[in-house]
């Protein structure tokens, strides 16, 4: 699993590639922890290269959602594949996470509440 971090203003875009399963979840969690610890206010997860994530990875996104919410920040999902959208739908997490298919719209969404 590959993670590229793109820092912008007071937030970050995480470009993720590969399945977020097994010990990949710990690497994913660490990358998110590092960003949140650096006092960012928003996160965009670029999931265009992620065909699958397990329930622990979903839990990591929920934790990020809650921690950013505490500081009036936001996390959104970008380019989620059909398989990921299906899991969000099954777990009803689609009611919690905003998903976008356009980078500029995702950036506007995280910055609008700042």
């Amino acid at each position: 699993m590959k993670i590229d971090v793109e820092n912008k203003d007071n937030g970050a875009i995480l470009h993720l590639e590969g399945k977020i399963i097994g010990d990949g979840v710990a690497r994913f969690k660490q990358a998110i922890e590092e960003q949140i610890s650096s006092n960012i206010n928003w996160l965009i997860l670029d999931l265009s290269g992620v065909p699958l994530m397990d329930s622990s990875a979903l839990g990591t996104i929920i934790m990020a959602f809650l921690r950013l919410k505490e500081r009036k920040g936001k996390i959104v999902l970008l380019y989620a594949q059909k398989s990921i959208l299906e899991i969000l739908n099954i777990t009803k997490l689609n009611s919690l996470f905003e998903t976008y298919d356009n980078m500029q719209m995702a950036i506007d969404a995280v910055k609008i509440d700042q």
Partner: protein
Amino acid sequence: MKIKNNKKRDITLDIPSEVRHIYLLDNVLAYVAKEMDFDEETREQVNLAVIEAGTNAIKHGNKNDSNKMVHFRFNISNDKLTVYVKDYGRGFDPSNLDDPLSPENVMKPCGRGIFLMKALMDKVEFTMIGECGTEVKMIKYKIQSKADDGDNSGICK
């Protein structure tokens, strides 16, 4: 680690209880899905359900003890795939789990693994083998093409 493929179309995989081996399980699942000739959606469903079962067995069953193995058996037949996942944990009460869809639980970071297994597979059963561990049995039926089943019944279930 041991992978065995015998003439009965049973594939077995034994892995030590370390989550890094989930990627090996993922590779075996790709092979099993190819053998089953599952469509893409079914392949993704089985993939995630078995990965959830394997991760649970490693983390909660065997408590990440790499001296304990997790055993997988994939029984391939024409109309269905049956997957067995066995660990050496003390088991749990599957009827006493929180509903992750209820409003008070939807924000919790944990507790979706078994829910997803049940949602993605056609049948999921848990057997507690006393002090010897827990076995999960999961079944996914195959959607037969008309050419395969020789009639117009569609779903073979």
